[in-house]
Each structure stands twice: as C-alpha cells, then as structure tokens.
C-alpha cells in the first residue's frame, strides 16, 4: 500500500465532508392503497365479485367509459391503487395516455382469446355530404356475452387472489361464496332474458344504430344489421346509413325494432315508426344509469326489447 494508512483514513473522512452528491429529503411518496380501482361499470362488477364491493374504488362513475378522462387526482388514485382493473385499451382509450403502472394494471380483455371478440363489420357510412368511409375494430361490449363475462370474472378472481394486503374479514370465504352465488343468479336471469329474446325474435333480423348489441344478437341467434346513423346535435346524420336502414326495413323478415344504445333521437324515431314501421327501443348494456346492478339493468333492458319485438 503506497499511501500511509492514517492518511487514507483521514482522507476518507474528508471525502465524506467534501462530497457534493449528498441526497436531500423530499416528500414522502404516497403508499399503495389496498383497493382495486376501476373506471367502468363492467370492470366494477367483475372487481366486486372478485374482492367484494368494500375494496373496489370506482372512478368516472358519472361518465361513459369512452368519454371519461382522468383528472390529476384520479391519476394519483390510479397509480396508488394495489391493482387497476381495465376492460381493454380500446374500451378505455384514456389508459393509452395515462402513466399507469404496468405491474399493477390488469387488462381483462387481454385474457380472452381473439375468437371471443366480434369484429365490427365494415359498415360504410357518410357524415352529411362527406365521403363514404368505414371503421374497423372489434365490438367492445364483450361483457354482454354471458360466457365471456364468466371467463373475465374467473380470470380476475385468479389475478386478484391474495393480492390485497387488507386484513381479511373472519367470514371472508363465506362472503366470497355468497358474492359468486349472487353473480351466478344474476347471470342466469340475464341468460333467461336472452333466451326469451331468442324465442320472441325467432331468427328474424334486428336493427341497431350503433355497435354493441352483437354479442346479445349472437346469443339470441338473431341476425343484426348495424346502421351507424351517428346523429349529431345539429341534426346532421349519416345519410348512407339511413338509406341502408330504409332498404333493409323494406325487406321482410325483420323483428320490427330499432335498437338505440343511447338517447333516442325523437325526429328519427318518428321517421322510423311512421316511414319504416320500426319501433325504437333503448337498450342499456350496463353503461347507463345507476342504482341497480349492471346485470339487472341489462336484463331489464333485454326484457323491454323482447316486449317491443313484433309478434310473428
């Protein structure tokens, strides 16, 4: 050793004093909260069945999934949650622009096979006088398929099992069984509503003004024609789709209903009723309203749809 030991020790001590890279205290990082945070009604249902309603935090309850955008406070809630449960990147497009933690984010759609999804037919349409075009993609309302809903609940249950570090209630196992039994009862009622719709429709064609009813139509063995009317506030609508609907309604073999997945446009409702002989029905696929559970709202909607189907 070429350097005297005492000098080295002294220099090391001085090194500590002279070192300019000392760390500075900063604000303590917020700890992870033992909750599952969701931002859509279907994800909320699935999370509640898996971990119980007390451990689920719902954001954006007053907005539709596609139109919601998280505030800064929402983002903090999302990144500090033990898990964030999403349906899919297309269903929650805001997630593509938010700094969600990959290790704590579960995307339920990723756990389904590609065959589970229905591709949107390339429905050619126009906006007013604009050029004709179409949108590709998949129908996002996959939770309306009872089999896929069960698969997502099963998948979420596996991924969330033992993840939360919250103290477990003494009767946690009993509660979990009760939640699953209640879920199965609701799914059974929903399947019964689909079966009833199938019976009433009897293979005739259904019309809808937007994508979303495809999974129900498939389960009810009902051909579905989606005509993207895309009626805007100004009253401007997709003329191409309106013409297509008029042409299809003129043909026999339809069930006499026009399904709306949002507010019914009163002027067009009148046209559909008087001009085309179609009864407008608003169907809630679980994204509207509150109070009742998602499945009971969907069941009630399908019962309303069945009631509106023209007798054979």
């Amino acid at each position, binding site marked *: 050793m*070429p*350097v*005297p030991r*005492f*000098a*080295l020790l*002294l*220099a*090391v001590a*001085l*090194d500590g*004093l*002279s*070192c*300019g*890279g*000392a*760390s*500075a*205290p*900063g*604000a*303590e*990082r917020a700890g992870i909260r033992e909750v599952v945070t969701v931002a859509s009604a279907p994800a909320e249902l699935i999370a509640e069945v898996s971990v119980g309603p007390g451990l689920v935090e719902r954001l954006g309850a007053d907005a539709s999934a596609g139109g919601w*955008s998280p505030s*800064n406070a929402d*983002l*903090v809630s999302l*990144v500090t949650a033990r898990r964030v449960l999403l349906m899919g*990147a297309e269903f929650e*497009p*805001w997630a*593509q*622009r*938010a*700094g*969600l*933690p*990959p*290790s*704590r984010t579960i995307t339920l759609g*990723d756990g389904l096979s590609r065959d589970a999804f229905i591709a949107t037919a*390339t429905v*050619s349409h126009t*906006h007013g006088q*604009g*050029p*004709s*075009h*179409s949108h*590709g993609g998949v129908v996002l309302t996959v939770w309306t398929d009872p089999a896929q809903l069960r698969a997502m609940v099963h998948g979420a249950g596996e991924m969330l099992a033992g993840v939360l570090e919250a103290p477990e209630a003494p009767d946690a196992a009993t509660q979990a069984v009760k939640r699953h039994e209640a879920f199965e009862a609701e799914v059974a009622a929903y399947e019964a509503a689909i079966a009833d719709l199938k019976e009433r429709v009897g293979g005739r064609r259904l019309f809808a003004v937007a994508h979303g009813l495809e999974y129900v139509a498939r389960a009810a063995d009902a051909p579905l024609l989606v005509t993207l009317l895309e009626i805007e506030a100004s009253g401007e609508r997709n003329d191409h789709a309106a013409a297509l609907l008029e042409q299809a309604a003129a043909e026999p073999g339809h069930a006499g209903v026009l399904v709306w997945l949002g507010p019914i446009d009163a002027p067009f409702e009148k046209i559909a009723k008087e001009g085309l002989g179609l009864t407008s029905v608003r169907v809630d696929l679980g994204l509207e309203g509150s109070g009742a559970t998602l499945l009971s709202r969907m069941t009630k909607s399908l019962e309303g749809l069945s009631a509106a189907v023209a007798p054979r």
Partner: protein
Amino acid sequence: MSGLLYLAWRHARAHGARTALLILCIALALWVPLTAGVLARRYNTDLRARANSTPLLIGAPGNRYDLTLAALYFRPSERIETISYRALDELQAENRATCIPLHQRFTARGFPVVATSIEYAEFRDLRLAEGSDPLRIGACTLGATVAEDLGLKSGDFLYSDPTELYDIARPPALKMRISGVYAKTGGPDDGAVFCDVRTAWVLEGIAHGHVEAEEIDEALVLSRTDDSVSVSGALIEYAEVTEANEASFHYHGDTSLLPLTAVLAVPRSTKDATLLKSGVNARMPLQAVTPSAVIDDLLGVVFRVKAFFDLVGLFLVVTTAALVGLVFLLSSRLRTAEMRTLDRIGAPRSAARTLIALEVVGTLVVAACLSVSATALTLRFLPDLVASF
C-alpha cells in the same frame, strides 16, 4: 523537549525556502496516490452500490456492458437494440418479478430522457421536491441537477432535442410540461429527465396526435378508401400535449410491438431471480444480465490498470522518501558545528538526534496535512464521476 521544539521551529523558519520545498515535495508525492486511492474507492463503492441495487436487467441480445451502463447510468448508446412491449407483458405474466419498462434514446437539452413508469420512481425511492410524478403523456419530472442547471421548476416547459433537424419526416421536438422535480439523490437519477414510457413513443413518432381524419384539409389527403385515409407528410402533428388535444393522441399498429430499450426486473425472491434469468436466456430472444456481475467484470479490468498506477505511486513515494532522507543527511553534516555547540553548552547527547527527528516529523506531519487537504479539495471540486459516468 520544549527547547528542542523551539530550536527545530526556529531552524525551519531560518531555512523557510528549503523547508517549504521539502513539504511541497512530500505533499505532492502523497497527494497523487492518496487522491487516486480515494477516488477509486468512491468510484468502486458508488458503482457497485448502483449495480447491487438493480437485481436484473433484460434487453435485446448484444453488448451486456452497453445494456447495463445505459440502464444504470443512462449512457446514450445507439448500439442498443430495442425489445417489444410484449416482452414486458410476458415477463410480467410469469409473476416472478415486478417488471419496469425503460426507454432511453432521446435527450432534452443534452440531458437523457428516461421513459419509464411510476414503478421506477418507487423502486429507486425518488422523492418529490415539488410537483408530481409524470402521470400523463407529454409530462416530465426533472432530476435535481437538471432542474438546477436549467433553472426549471414544475409548470415550466422543456423541449426534447430533435433527432434529425433537417428531416421533416421525423417527429418534431416535443414541448414537455414539467410536472415536478425529484429531490437530490446523489446518483445518476439527478441528471435525467423522467417521463412515462408512452411519451417516448410520441418522441419516436409511433404515437401522435392530430386533427380527426374527417376534418383533415382535403388538400392534404392523398387517398381515401373505405378502410383508410392516406394523408400527406405535410400534415402537422401536435408538438405539445395539452388538455385540449390530449384525447387525440393515439398509436398506430399493434401496441404490443411498441419499443423498449430494457426491462428492469425486481424479482420477488432469489429463486425467482434465478428462474427468471435462466428462463429468459434459455427461451426468449432476449438477454438477462445481473448488473452487479457486469460491473464487477468492468471494474476488474479498471482495477488491473489501477494496480499499475499504484505501483507508479509507490515508486514516487519511495523516491521522494530517499531524496528527503538524503536532504536531511546532508543537512545534518552541514550542521556539525551547531550540534557541537549544543554538546558544549551541556545538552544531553541525544539532543542532536532528537532535534533532527523533530524536524523530520514536523515536516512530514505538515506535508501529510497539506496532501490530505489538497485531496479533500480535489474531491470537492471534481465532477461526480459516477453521476456523469
């Protein structure tokens, strides 16, 4: 004894130039190896600490040193191949580790832009001095040194450096909103600009925002079919993510193929680390490296070179000691009359030897203090080599 001390002090003062020269020579001979030794020790400790705190790095096959130095110290390297985001999903699905994405191919005003996720800040325990983590696309949080050097704070803006200034096909510089500043850590994180990994994809030009396809000026539409609209490259993409245009930012193509430069894996246990590493190296077209092993290899080479310089330092000290010894020997010969006087006035026989010993020790002590002070000053003002590694 105090009389001898006084005599030694008076002698040193009487021959000030000679004493100062001796002290300077000895101090210099000690300063060089001392500084090198302390620097090497600090360098070694800091490098190993950063590497030891990083359990596993996964990236494209290639130079493991490039991968490790880029991921640990944010050294820009054009040679690093990217891996797809799918790799992160697959690693995450194994449930053996927390997998943190890393993307670092861009700079902002010369500082590396580290695109990652919130888990990185949690893993490195980056605390906020002000503001928040980068939670939105187009937002960034600055390391302490970046904020200090550029005089920026949360709420300000920072432009990314354009990759190709004269290539209009490349995305323009992105005006990033500064959402916060991290507290000083004393490590490489202080000199980086952090953003969410999605922001890096905007910088890459893979994600972008622009007006709706149906609202594009017809003069910019090259072709329009039922399935697609081809627009001219002259269509201006947004160069800043604002509240108003944020919703228009989107990706094209398969999102699982979006690029990353590395994945930092934090295994749940030693067993998981072993299984994950062996699984990656055996099954995947990726490489998994243990940063501490890579840095050990690197430092092994560095310290073989250091051993040579230690030898040179040793020669320097020995030579200086010999010269100083010679100076004191010759000096004592010249002071024969002085010593004889001491003897005649009744001083003990050992007084002469004690006097010279006191002079030697005094010179050595002052020289040692000087070299230690010089070493401390050098370390104080030398740039942090690890931070700027």
